[in-house]
């Protein structure tokens, strides 16, 4: 039951990970909902790979599930990454620009 215990602990840990926020008590339900939504969309996004390769999709789904459970309270991290800080916003914007141009330009050669 180690994994289950870890799962429970991490849900409890969500509260402390939000403690920097003044939201602590009020919004634990919201944080748990967000946590599950992130998990489900990660798995479904991994399943989306089955249109490319079924084997890859199985491997990635398992990998995502394991990685998710080992890094459990993701909601707090995701929230702090998407704060209103200009530096974080610019950083992600430039990173996405780079990835997008690189993947679309070089990716097309391997289609």
């Amino acid at each position, binding site marked *: 039951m180690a994994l289950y215990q870890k799962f429970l602990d991490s849900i409890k840990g969500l509260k402390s990970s*939000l403690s920097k926020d003044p939201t602590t008590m009020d919004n634990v339900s*919201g944080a748990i909902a967000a946590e599950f939504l992130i998990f489900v969309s990660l798995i479904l996004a991994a399943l989306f790979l089955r249109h490319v390769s079924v084997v890859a999709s199985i491997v990635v789904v398992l990998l995502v599930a394991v990685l998710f459970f080992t890094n459990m309270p993701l909601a707090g991290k995701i929230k702090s990454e998407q704060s209103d800080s200009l530096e974080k916003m610019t950083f992600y914007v430039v990173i996405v620009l780079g990835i997008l141009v690189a993947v679309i330009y070089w990716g097309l050669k391997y289609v």
Partner: protein
Amino acid sequence: MNYLIPLMVVIPILAALIVNIFGGKDKTVKAISIVVAIAIPIIAIIAAVGIQYFGGHDPALLANSLPSNLVGTLVASYNTGIVYVFENIERIFIFLMGIVAFLAVLTYFSEKKEVSGPYLYLIFMGIASVTALMLSNDIFNMYVFFEITALTQVGIIIASSTEDNYEIALKYLILGAIGGPMLLLGIGFILGTIGSVNINDIIFAISNNYVNPYAPSLVIGFALILFGWLYSAGLPPFHTIKSAVYSKARPNGSAILQGFSVLCMLAFGIAMYKIFAYIPYFNTAIIVFAILAMALSIAMSAMEVDFRRMIAFLAVGELGFIALGFGIGTQYSIAAALFQAANEIVITALLFIGFGTVYYLTKTSDTRKLGGLIAVDSKMAIMVLLGGFALAGVPPFNGFQSKLMLVQAALDAGYTELAVLAIIVSVVIFFTFVKAFHTVYLQPKPKDLKFAHDKIPKATVFSVAVLLIICLALGIFPNIVTDVFIPFAGGLI
């Protein structure tokens, strides 16, 4: 000649200039604004479908006067001037935007005694530019009007005098100064490859193999325009700034801002689909950003305690559904995306204006300090609740029809996982909304809650009621719009 088509852009610009000149005279400004705001949707309804060639540069007429050695070449088919195309789909979106703008202006007048000329200037200028964006068939012209829209959006936040609005405005400008030029760079790459910025010419040149469709310059142009599209729509990585922008405007301003974003997204989305749909991985790229938008924005909104920011994140998350429809790329899914866009303009405006009354009454938007507001105005509370149902996709409202259509389209196209994801995201939207509704309206009123106003103005109630009726009408008779969207989507692919 169909003069109503350019007038759709000219009238709001004129109105913008006039209300700015008459800045101090409240009655004149109010009268002009109301008349113009009613006129915009009426013109959209009565204008006949047509094409406006600016400068009279109709390629069909010019072809007759060309020297014989040029007939049948690429030059003969290129458009010489800017072209506006007005079809039924533009009619629907300009009409809905006009209605939302009218109701927002009405709400603004009822909640503020002294009206601000510059604020109305920004609203009308924004309406003119998004209308032009929808009509224009020229990507550079679209870029220009998009930048004007972005500037008016910034102006609306600056004029809103909320806490931290200057910081958010500057952040939006700084990020826009990365996103906008990248869009222009993409347009530049296309211009350099094809030699024209008219969408029809670009499609003509690509589909008739005058240029290599997989030329590196075209592909990079696609990547950069896709990035600009993310900026214009507020999809990730721009979702945080976009939601901050919505939450820092006045409620009526937010209602208009989200309408602008939806129209920008549609205009560039349709243009991009027309030009680049042949590129492999076009659909995958859009689906990836759609999934990110839905998952990240809705997760953020679930964790939010400021209800204005929460609705703002919900609005951005709903954009993910539109992107999903475009990404799946079948006729039915694109029609569903367009239907979802039409619904989003109305529903999100309803929620911004409806929940905005809470801010109007109490001057706070923190759900932890609120409660028991159903006692103040139960009618408004119920209308907001119904609006939330429409957002989450509860029958018989329009959100249900468009999401059902989207899920069916995803299933038909074989993307079962996307259909499941769409449903789950809707469930979380419902959860988030009901939680906010409960904390604001139903839980016991905190003792220290102070009211700035006692009553909600009648005009605001009227606005929300009208928007709710539109939601219900589109939900019960979806054919009004889907009969236009499905053939249009069929023409796109």
